[in-house]
């Protein structure tokens, strides 16, 4: 590492261990030196918090919630990530047996089309606060896209490690930004272990390893936006896909923070987690309820959420159970149907993780977890154009015609009235 000048404009918050409570100064370290538990940013409880009106008057990015993000001063990078649409989808409500359904649509997240833009916006500014001149990540694909894009804009070199079997769109959507991209023979869990060693060896800011304490806080903005966009209230239930288990845990934290800030009143949402049955260690932990995560070797086309040994698995299961929610997993065939159903009912094309989310919501409905008066938000966290392989064989071929009106008229006549 060649330390560059620490950005004087931005400071990272000090940290506290979630397990033993030990406190440390701000540092690019995510592990407690006493007990090896996870470190979390320490916010000043007496800091001045904005009102609804103040927040609403700020720009449409996740920085409108800056008092709940782990950076002070003026974060220099990625000023315009966040504030994606919340879209009501009336046609899904009867299918889930609930009153109303919305999609929180991070398939159109800026700049890299997944919710990972949020966590990277937090982490890359932490890297700036520490004067780290190189960033990196271990990734199942979306994080790679987000780090590569945001590092390119910031002018920082990036080292990005991915499993060697990712979808073409995920690989191209990383390499186009010209990072140092390395494909590792193995699963994500192998890549992740390697990156823990890499973070120890090189003085880089690996966003989901040594910057993880700051990174994770970015996910809370997904919850903040849901509450604000619903008109400063909570839905009754939220369904989110799970890989490392960070997003679902941070959704819970975000909702609790808005409740305790007095910005939103009422009951906290029930949190529901979704995984593919070919890699569902957190779902199985929720179902067993024993607190002992059993790692798995992933076997699913939902590669973005194929983490067999999730770092936040135990916390995710705990957040879900404490909220009164539950978790479900679905087959690869069901997740593909989920992708198609979301496209046909919401006009939103999501990737495999989004297919898992909708299909798991249907499974949860089938199991009786939803109530007729429920208001459900589906967390759609990634874009379908990145995983087109998942749909091969599922879509009909479009007919090819000569440029002749008569042929079009014949085709229209042969097409069933309901789909005309």
């Amino acid at each position, binding site marked *: 590492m060649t330390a560059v000048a620490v950005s004087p404009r931005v400071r990272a918050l000090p940290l506290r261990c979630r*397990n033993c409570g030990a406190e440390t100064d701000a540092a690019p*370290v*995510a*592990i407690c*030196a006493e*007990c*090896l*538990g*996870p470190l979390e940013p320490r916010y000043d409880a007496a800091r001045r918090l904005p009102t609804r009106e103040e927040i609403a008057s700020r720009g449409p990015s996740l920085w409108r919630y800056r008092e709940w993000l782990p950076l002070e001063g003026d974060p220099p990078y990625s000023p315009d990530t966040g504030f994606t649409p919340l879209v009501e989808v009336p046609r899904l409500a009867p299918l889930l047996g609930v009153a109303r359904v919305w999609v929180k649509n991070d398939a159109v997240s800026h700049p890299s089309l997944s919710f990972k833009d949020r966590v990277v916006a937090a982490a890359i500014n932490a890297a700036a606060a520490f004067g780290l001149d190189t960033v990196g990540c*271990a990734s199942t694909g979306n994080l790679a896209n987000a780090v590569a894009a945001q590092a390119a804009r910031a002018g920082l070199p990036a080292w990005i490690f991915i499993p060697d079997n990712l979808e073409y769109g995920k690989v191209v959507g990383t390499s186009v930004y010209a990072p140092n991209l390395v494909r590792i023979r193995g699963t994500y*869990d*192998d890549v*992740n*272990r390697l*990156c*823990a*060693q890499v*973070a*120890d060896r090189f003085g880089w800011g*690996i966003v*989901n*390893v040594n910057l*993880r304490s700051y990174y994770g806080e970015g996910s809370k903005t997904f919850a903040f936006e849901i509450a604000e966009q619903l008109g400063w209230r909570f839905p009754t239930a939220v369904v989110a896909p799970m*890989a*490392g*288990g*960070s997003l679902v845990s941070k959704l819970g934290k975000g909702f609790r923070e808005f409740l305790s800030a007095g910005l939103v009143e009422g009951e906290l949402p029930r949190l529901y987690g979704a995984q593919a049955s070919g890699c569902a260690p957190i779902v199985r932990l929720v179902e067993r309820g024993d607190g002992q995560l*059993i*790692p798995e*070797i992933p076997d699913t086309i939902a590669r973005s959420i194929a*983490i067999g*040994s*999730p*770092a*936040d698995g135990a916390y995710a299961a705990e957040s879900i159970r404490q909220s009164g929610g539950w978790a479900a997993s679905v087959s690869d065939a069901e997740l593909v149907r989920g992708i198609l159903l979301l496209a046909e009912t919401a006009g939103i094309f999501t990737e495999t993780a989004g297919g898992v989310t909708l299909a798991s919501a249907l499974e949860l409905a089938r199991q009786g977890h939803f109530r007729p008066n429920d208001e459900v938000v589906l967390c759609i966290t990634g874009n379908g154009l990145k995983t087109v392989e998942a749909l091969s064989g599922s879509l009909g071929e479009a007919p090819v015609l000569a440029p002749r009106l008569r042929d079009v008229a014949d085709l229209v006549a042969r097409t069933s009235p309901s789909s005309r």
Partner: protein
Amino acid sequence: MSVTLSLPAVLTRLTDGARTIEASGATVGDVVSDVAGRFPQLGPRLRDEQGNPYSFVTFYLNDEDIRFTGGFATVVRDGDELIIVPAIAGG
């Protein structure tokens, strides 16, 4: 059997700065006992009071997570590498 143990930086203050330790035993559990005996402060960061792997670390024998191979009962061979990584990393 002689095995090389690799530690994460966060644990090296418990080993006078050593990053790797040569240790011996027939199983991963034996190797951990050997190291815990020689570095008493490190012991509780490798195994809990019941003698099970400490919950905030993951053990890899030659790059393979020992939770898939029998945990502390996993048999080691001469020259094996045992890597210890904090469990709350990555994802």
